[in-house]
């Protein structure tokens, strides 16, 4: 069992419910925004985590998703654009007992906050990062974002001058930055999102979940194939540790490696069986497999993997720092201010 620093509710204490985590503020996202669902699922899983409400902190940057902390009856800090990872790191460092959650979006995390995002991943604070990816800037009225597909028509790329940038793949970026827990889910896939949120919490280290989220107003249906019931079985593949990558409405398709390329194969026509398919290993230290899987969503006609790409245990920054402090105190004793001020060569005038 992984040891979490987060305090647990004592046995016998009253059980919390999702209503305990709802603040008194009216939720003000657009009707049918995907954010509602993510908020509701988060409020549902929190009582199940066994931690006191006062130990939960939500930190956000700027954007539609970043209003999230106002709707949680926990501690919360709605900060500035892109900088939530830095503030969350300070919160966690100063009190490692807290359960710290960063709520961010594709513009907030990957554009203005790109630098902080990658450095948070490599430091591996025990912080959970939920990236609401809707491939658009919503709050500023519909400009293309760093995850918008090339050629996106948006308010800043109107007809005739579609977006020119190659999008980031958030999963690949997180993996390249040394993230120890990387997962993907979808705003309205409730039965998938909840276990992902819980797994992120249970993981000791920085947990990153990319959540495909629909912006009904500015980028409706950007994830239609992965989100909607009638398409998702053919356009997503569930990652389950130790299981072959099988998907399709009839579960008749699978992913195998052809050289260095993932390839969709039919497992019913006799040419391939499930034995030929990639078997998922989320605990692999080596990131090669996770990178292959991450790249699938950049490849046309490939199903997008959903689930945990990688989950490995590395030391957390706050624990390493706490150990340094403990070791220093063991070696030289608790700091003595009088002695410190009088350190080095001194002389006395009487």
């Amino acid at each position, binding site marked *: 069992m992984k040891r979490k620093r987060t305090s647990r509710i004592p046995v016998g204490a009253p059980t919390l419910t999702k209503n305990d985590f709802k*603040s008194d*503020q009216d939720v003000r996202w657009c009707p049918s925004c995907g954010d509602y669902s993510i908020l509701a699922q988060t409020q549902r899983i929190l009582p199940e985590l066994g931690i*006191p*409400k*006062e*130990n939960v*902190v939500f*930190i956000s940057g*700027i954007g539609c998703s970043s209003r999230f*902390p*106002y709707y*949680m*009856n*926990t*501690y*919360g*800090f*709605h*900060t*500035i654009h892109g*900088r939530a*990872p*830095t*503030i969350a*790191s*300070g*919160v*966690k*460092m*100063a*009190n490692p*007992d*807290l359960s710290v959650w960063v709520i961010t979006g594709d513009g907030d995390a990957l554009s203005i906050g790109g*630098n*902080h995002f990658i*450095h948070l991943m490599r430091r591996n604070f025990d912080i959970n990062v939920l990236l609401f990816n809707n491939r658009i800037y919503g709050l500023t009225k519909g400009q293309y974002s760093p995850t918008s597909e090339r050629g996106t028509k948006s308010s800043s790329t109107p007809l005739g001058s579609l977006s020119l940038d190659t999008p980031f793949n958030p999963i690949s970026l997180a993996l390249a930055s040394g993230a120890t827990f990387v997962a993907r889910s979808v705003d309205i896939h409730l039965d998938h999102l909840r276990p992902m949120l819980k797994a992120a919490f249970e993981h000791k280290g920085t947990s990153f979940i990319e959540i495909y989220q629909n912006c009904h107003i500015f980028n409706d249906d950007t994830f239609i194939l992965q989100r909607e019931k009638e398409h998702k079985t053919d356009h997503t593949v569930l990652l389950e540790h130790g299981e072959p990558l099988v998907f399709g409405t009839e579960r008749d398709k699978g992913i195998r490696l052809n050289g260095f390329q993932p390839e969709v194969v039919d497992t019913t026509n006799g040419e391939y069986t499930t034995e030929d398919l990639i078997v998922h290993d989320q605990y692999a230290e080596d990131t090669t497999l996770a990178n292959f899987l991450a790249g699938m969503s950049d490849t046309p006609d490939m199903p997008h993997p959903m689930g945990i790409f990688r989950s490995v245990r590395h030391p957390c920054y706050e624990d390493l*720092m706490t150990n*340094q*402090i403990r*070791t*220093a*105190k063991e*070696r*030289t*004793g*608790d*700091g003595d*201010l*009088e002695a*410190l*001020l*009088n*350190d*080095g*060569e*001194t*002389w*006395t*005038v*009487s």
Partner: protein
Amino acid sequence: MRKPVEQIEAATILFAGDSGDGSQSIGTQMTETTALIGNDVATLPDYPAEIRAPAGSLAGVSGFQLHFSSEQIHTPGDLCDVLVVMNPAALKMHLHKLKPNGILIANTDNFARRNLRLAGYEKDPLESDALTKYQVFRVELTRLTRKALETTQLSMGEIDRCKNFFALGMILWLYNRPMEYTMKWIKAKFAQKPQYIEPNILALRAGNTYCDMTEQFAVSYDVKPAPFEPGTYRNIEGNMATVLGLVAASHRSELPLVYGSYPITPASDILHGLAKYRNFGVVTMQMEDEIAAVGVAIGAAFSGALGVTGSSGPGLALKSEAMNLAMIAELPLVVCNIQRAGPSTGMPTKTEQSDLLQMFYGRNGESPIPIVASSRPFDCFESVYEACRIAVKYRTPVIFLSDLYIGMGAEPWRIPKISELPEIKPSFAVSADTTNGFEPYLRDPETLARPWAKPGTAGLEHRIGGLEKSDVTGHVSYDSENHEKMVEIRAEKVARIANDIPPTEIFGAQEGEILLLGWGGTFGALRTTAENYVAEGLPIGHVHLRHLNPFPNDLGDILHRFKKILIPELNSGQLLQLIRATYLIDAIGLNKVQGQPFHVFELHAKIDEILKEMEHF
């Protein structure tokens, strides 16, 4: 026969050479020794931004000036009594700082044609009559060091690197200073590389003996200890005093210190210094950029720690949005700005005090942030401690201003007793005391500070952020009247800090002709100037401001007691603008923007000019 010793009141020495010649380390050693035997001392390191500019070039010259005295002094001295140059470039760069008839010690071994050419000399100045107004001592420093060290196992390159200690040995002889402190330092410095201990000590002794034995120096000098207030003293650089002030504030408040920083000259020494004190629970985080550095400090403050970040002007520009967040969220935060010459990258290794208006106004919206400025190296301790006190008590970011000149300069410091340090009480909120539940913007009626509720405290769950908040409840609010009210409250909170600071001290005349008004690292030059006029019986006063925002309550009165207000600053007149705007006073500026501190004679010239004009009318 022992050569005669002449008693003098004070001396100024400037060591200069290539960046790799060790001028900084022998300057520091001379400072330590002279402080330990009881002189008052002030220093000015002056070095290039390049780590190793081409050897022998003008760009690569690194200097270290120190001034020591049997009286209280406040500056590293205007002109030098002794100039030690390791090469022609150092001579070229610094000769103008040597007093007429001053002592010039030159390492003749480095005055070959190539070095002369690099320094722009057509012929050897040591052989010309260009230096007749100085006492020139031509010393084969390199050859003599090699000879002294010929029995050691070191390579020629390693031997040549010991020659700075030969020079130091000479200076210690010239001023009758003991070698023991330097020897002790050499032993400690090279504890891990013991092969260098003996050779450096040999070089030091050789330089000392050389002066004793040769006819070159007829006289040596002695500077008696200066009168100091009773107490225990140590020598301290401004940045180190800042480090100790922060540790002391953390210790006294029992708030763990979290220092976020990104490397930048001249603030990095604070990061280096604090990183050594893990046993005090000090967390230092070297972050990916300046914004992240202030971000972790704000996060730590939200979590209930003493959050501090430090940088210099360019870094402060990047931090300004986050500082505004701390301002509107009303969280304690200390932001250290060790100023250097701007704008932009400017001159990173030269001093200036040109960030004052940036600190006042360099943020969007109405953003009052208290500013505390240190005036001299040892004052960094008290000033940064004061910044922490205000931040915690008023739940506000506070800017602590220092600069390169005092950050890297050193002087003796009377070590305070822990009991002398003002109290810093975090007074965290522990329970909601209203029927409406916890109200994060329900203020202390006296200070207007809002409660500081740490995550982890049951019942006080609340949300803060950069959006405007409703008074008392802290809910997001776009109400126009509430916004104006909150702007006023935040300004009033900072203004009330003026009720919590001691009365302003005026040195010299309490009223009269001219008031010298200053802030920051110009203290030494201003105080020395004021002392000179006061000694002549002229009605001149000096006020040096520690609190720049808010200004002290009594400042307006004081300004009206003098006929003329002179504000000397190492910028184009920034405090000048603030004083003129705040008090509607026709203050006069004296401005210097050369990356160098004021000389006392520059201040004298301006004051004499003003006095003359005043006689005229």
